[in-house]
């Protein structure tokens, strides 16, 4: 009896999920992408992976700031590793630089002419999807934009589930006046227009706030106005499970409310809520992209899909590659998550699921 032994029902559901190839492979692709993107700085970065200078090896990706003088250049600001590589090749020295496959950072303006304008895709310059209106590499911005969107969506989902499950479960379990009052408050709360709240909140945040804390505030505002829908499912499911005899049996044994909720009700309810998770993620990605598109989302210069879409629609004729790549990425991303969601819904469907397979 090991601790990690899966409930056979859960094991069967997972097996069914694996049998639904489309959803399973979408899940694998997303999982691999998410894992890779956590170390995305190794693939897409203006900093070199390895620099060998005068017999010493440097790893600038995750290490401290290296001014140009560290590598015998004549400037104090951060080394431009692409130029350094060019410099080493030109001088034919033993020193060498290993750059990532896409040697651009998402924040870097790479305007060779000195004028910021979108450049079409150019494999020779390693701008595989071109540059945006301020000459930043689109592939780099798409990659990191997707990463932020996914991490943001997962954080959003976790927070919404935590609050929604806790409140919904309390309402369903305690019932009575608490339930009625909370239900009315939730109805009022969910009628506050979310977009106006975002605009108001962002207009009062002082500029001194860091980008990271701004992203957290945005996440907080979005969660604050989204957790309510979760409580509806949770409340009814808890009501349903609470009245079943296994809960009565636990109560006759003298089990405490905490024990009944955490050992009996929650495990039985959560299996149905898992089905909603991918769709919550889809909703979060769409919402954050829409907000970015309107200019109320992630603060600039954070790379984001919505911001690229906005640029792309403004330069639809002159630089169609911007909107095409951003739109394509969004479609692929949302389709993959939706496929996963469909597969989970299919494999967790209690009606199709027979115990005696």
């Amino acid at each position: 009896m090991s601790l990690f032994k899966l409930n056979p029902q859960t094991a069967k559901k997972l097996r069914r999920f694996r049998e639904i190839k489309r959803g399973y492979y979408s899940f694998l692709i997303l999982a691999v992408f998410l894992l890779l993107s956590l170390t995305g700085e190794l693939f897409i970065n203006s900093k070199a992976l390895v620099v060998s200078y005068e017999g010493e090896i440097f790893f600038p990706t995750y290490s401290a700031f290296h001014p140009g003088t560290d590598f015998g250049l004549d400037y104090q600001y951060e080394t431009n590793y692409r130029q350094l590589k060019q410099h080493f090749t030109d001088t034919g020295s033993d020193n060498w630089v290993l750059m990532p496959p896409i040697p651009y950072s998402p924040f870097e303006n790479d305007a060779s002419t000195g004028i910021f304008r979108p450049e079409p895709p150019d494999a020779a310059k390693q701008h595989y999807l071109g540059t945006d209106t301020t000459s930043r590499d689109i592939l780099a911005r798409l990659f990191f934009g997707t990463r932020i969107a996914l991490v943001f969506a997962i954080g959003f989902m976790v927070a919404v589930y935590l609050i929604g499950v806790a409140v919904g479960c309390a309402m369903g379990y305690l019932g009575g006046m608490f339930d009625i009052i909370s239900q009315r408050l939730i109805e009022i709360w969910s009628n506050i227009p979310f977009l106006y709240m975002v605009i108001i909140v962002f207009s009062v945040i002082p500029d001194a706030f860091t980008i990271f804390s701004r992203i957290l505030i945005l996440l907080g505002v979005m969660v604050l106005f989204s957790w309510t829908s979760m409580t509806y499912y949770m409340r009814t499911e808890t009501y349903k499970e609470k009245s079943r005899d296994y809960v009565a049996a636990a109560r006759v044994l003298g089990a405490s409310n905490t024990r009944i909720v955490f050992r009996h009700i929650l495990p039985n309810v959560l299996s149905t809520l898992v089905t909603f998770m991918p769709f919550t993620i889809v909703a979060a990605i769409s919402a954050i992209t829409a907000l970015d598109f309107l200019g109320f989302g992630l603060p600039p210069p954070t790379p984001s899909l919505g911001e690229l879409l906005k640029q792309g629609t403004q330069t639809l004729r002159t630089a169609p590659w911007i909107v095409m790549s951003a739109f394509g990425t969004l479609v692929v991303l949302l389709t993959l998550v939706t496929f996963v969601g469909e597969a989970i819904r299919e494999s967790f469907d209690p009606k199709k699921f027979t115990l005696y397979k």
Partner: protein
Amino acid sequence: MSVIPLPKKQAESLLRVRDLKMHFPVKEGIFMRTGKYNKAVDGVSLDIAPGETLGLVGESGCGKSTLGRCIARLYQPTAGEISFEGQDIAKLGRKPLMPFRRDIQMIFQDPMESLNSRHTVAQILEEPFQVHKIGNREFRQKRVKELLDLVGLPARSVTRYPFEFSGGQRQRIGIARSIALNPKLIICDEPVSALDVSIQSQILNLLIDLQKEFNLSYLFIAHDLAVVKHISDRIAIMYLGKIVESGVGESIYRTARHPYTQSLISAIPVPDPHHVAHRQILVGDVPSPINPPSGCNFHTRCPQAMEICSTVVPTLSDETQPVSCLLYEASKT
């Protein structure tokens, strides 16, 4: 107040219920005001002696399950007394109830519902010990094996889940859970109604064997008179929240006095093709316990109803086979 007498001459009854009432508020309107009450149990008194089985029979909706759940303290009764070994437990909170939880246990009707499908048999059977903080892991595992052996399930069942068993086996798990803490009284809420007839007798015999071995008392709730007759020492008949007649098992079948009991007994099928049934068929449905009829609440369906029945409320008589009917009250005076 007349009380169903104990058949054996026992000074102390294990369970003493006096004038127990369970009225559920009926919420109405948008402000959820309590307008009326559902009088599911309306003044029930009974005694159960140690080692005795009291059968409780009635139609569905007559309040017999509610009565059982009140005694198991799943509900807080509106009024009345539930004394267990001399102590009133009707108003106790969760903490002071804990020692009584060990003594009063319950078996439910549908074992699929009453066993958590996400727990293994071991988890289900260890829960009583965990809740009451009894013994260490080794002790619990040993006790689980013993319990499974007692109810006739193989020890290897511990890692299995309820859905891997048949209905009868599942009910055995439920029984094992209820006897885990060595209780003195078990409320059996229609424990065999959800089972096949062939399995019913096995489960009933298991209950009888366990009773002999551990000197258990049962409050055996059922709607099937034949099942109750098999297991009960005494039988009480319930109608609309009240006990209408009670008596020692055999005698109530032979000399049913209350018209309701008579019609119930006439409805028992007799396995004899030449038997000519004289059924007293009741017409109509059980009246709503929210608006019970005036006077004797059976008068709306009673074949022998008199004029007085709609105004005077009968009380349970003080006899060896108490009955709550004006037919007999009238003859006495």
